[in-house]
């Protein structure tokens, strides 16, 4: 028994690492290949037999991008709209979650169940009418049109309510006895205590709005307001015959965000893990 497992254990361990490494290779290599291809010439990509590395890395592929794709603008638009959406969702969700968790008011149950019910509505069901509303408001091709429909989240309200309801009422009562206003209680007591939940919700919302495509595709017309996914979409036709440039453009659109993620991965992943346990 003892000797058998002593023999098997290193083998099992090795197998574990090999499996993990294989999986990781599959996950990472597409990104690596994108970078390699982005440094090839147009000819090298179509060479037969295929080549695996550029003879000489073509860094000028990246400088060629600058002229036709306003990368800076795309980044600004994506950052600006995502930041607004994250801020709006965090604020509205925590305020409403606080009210639903810690206040008694007529219609509370009804409104809360209403919000729960809207959580079930998939985005595409509301796509056409929301487009129509945004159009009635004159918000097509504006930042408002991109941002405002995303400022509240039923899921966010639900998540924050679940967190805040676990906080002891005594904290709030004590603050009230000290004469704190309701807003102050929210800001000074509730918000600091639900920071982990806010981080989770913020991460989720950010990834969602940063990568959103269908809504911006419908709402945005002008180049000046395009977000990164729209930029990638227009590069697809712009560089249809220039795969090396398409790869360079996609790399520029994707890699900075990946770097940020790698630096902040702990917070990202902790936040994400939380959703599965609380959701």
């Amino acid at each position, binding site marked *: 028994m003892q000797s058998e497992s002593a023999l098997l254990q290193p083998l099992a361990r090795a197998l574990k690492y090999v499996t993990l490494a294989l999986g990781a290779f599959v996950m990472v290599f597409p990104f690596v290949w994108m970078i390699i291809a982005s440094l090839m010439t147009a000819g090298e990509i179509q060479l037969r037999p295929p080549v695996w590395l550029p003879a000489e890395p073509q860094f000028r592929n990246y400088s060629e991008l600058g002229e036709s794709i306003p990368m800076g603008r795309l980044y600004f638009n994506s950052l600006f709209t995502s930041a607004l959406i994250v801020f709006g969702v965090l604020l509205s969700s925590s305020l409403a979650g606080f009210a639903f968790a810690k206040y008694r008011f007529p219609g509370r149950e009804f409104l809360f169940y209403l919000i729960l019910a809207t959580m079930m509505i998939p985005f595409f069901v509301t796509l*056409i009418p929301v487009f129509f509303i945004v159009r009635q408001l004159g918000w097509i091709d504006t930042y408002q049109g991109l941002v405002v429909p995303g400022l509240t989240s039923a899921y966010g309200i639900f998540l924050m309510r679940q967190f805040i309801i676990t906080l002891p009422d005594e904290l709030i009562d004590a603050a009230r006895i000290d004469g704190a206003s309701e807003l102050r209680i*929210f800001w000074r007591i509730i918000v600091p205590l639900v920071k982990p939940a806010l981080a989770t919700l913020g991460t989720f919302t950010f990834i969602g709005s940063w990568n959103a495509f269908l809504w911006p595709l419908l709402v945005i017309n002008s180049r000046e307001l395009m977000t990164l996914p729209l930029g990638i979409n227009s590069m697809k036709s712009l560089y249809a015959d220039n795969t090396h440039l398409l790869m360079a453009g996609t790399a520029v659109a994707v890699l900075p965000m990946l770097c940020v993620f790698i630096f902040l991965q702990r917070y990202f992943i902790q936040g994400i893990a939380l959703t599965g346990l609380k959701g």
Partner: protein
Amino acid sequence: MQARLSRRRRAWWLPEIPKSALMRRRMLWAYAFVAAPVVALLVFLLGPILFSGWVSLHRWDMLSPVSEMPWRGLSNYRYLLTKDPVFLKSLGNTFFFAIGGVGANTILGLGFALLLNSRIRGRAIWRVLYFMPVITAPLALAVMFAFIFDRNYGLVNNVITAIGLPRQPFLSGPNQALLTLVFIAVYQFVGYYIVLFLAGLQGIPQDYYDAAQVDGAGKLQEFRYITLPLLRPVMLFVVVTNTIGALQVFDLVFATTGGAPANSSMTVVLHMYNTAFKFSRMGRASAMAFILFGIILLITIVQVRLLRDRAYQD
């Protein structure tokens, strides 16, 4: 719940206004806190879904005024379910996509989470590597994989032909396009499910395993009788959210095949987008949305029941 109901003196929808001025003030604050999100949800979710239902009973090209939409009754629904070959096909494709994706994500997600939960070096690094596609825009992944799976110049075909295997059409093959899309979707999301399962595994108290070992249980028995039952809540979350998401796939298909070849990879939301915004058939597109919504609701209810019931049995 029962006790509270019986205590109520008036009907549930009639407001109970608190007596004290202090309580009334607090109530006002609560209304202020919920006002903006509730109004926004009404405007951007509840109103639209009602409007969508209304439009689905009409013919509307979005260019003519809403007040002049011709009434069509249930004919949009009837057309979709009996006459529109593309809708039924896209429905089948969407189911295939969801079943394949959810199955693979659950098995691979749990498998890799188990590996990562064992004694392993560099857990954080592995996790990061597996998580990278999750935060990448589906559109970027679509562009990357359209190139990687290209029939002529794609990396995968370069590799498989180099080792003597036959070249595959992947995204351009009627029998492979959908399967390739499933692969890309799993590639994109498996890291997310690994993280979820891993968090679930780490939440299982070590005592259970210790006790099982005292009883002489093997690894497989531990998995069957401790890990799986205790993971049910996470499993439920993974299966339900993944199914809901997969049934709504759009970005990936739009940016890779666009439904080609010959609708063999057409999905419901892409077909809906085309119907609405390419052919200006808002009524029919809205009906499509409602049918899919009904299906999603039904599947979700069934999944929740199945996975919950079994959790109680154990």
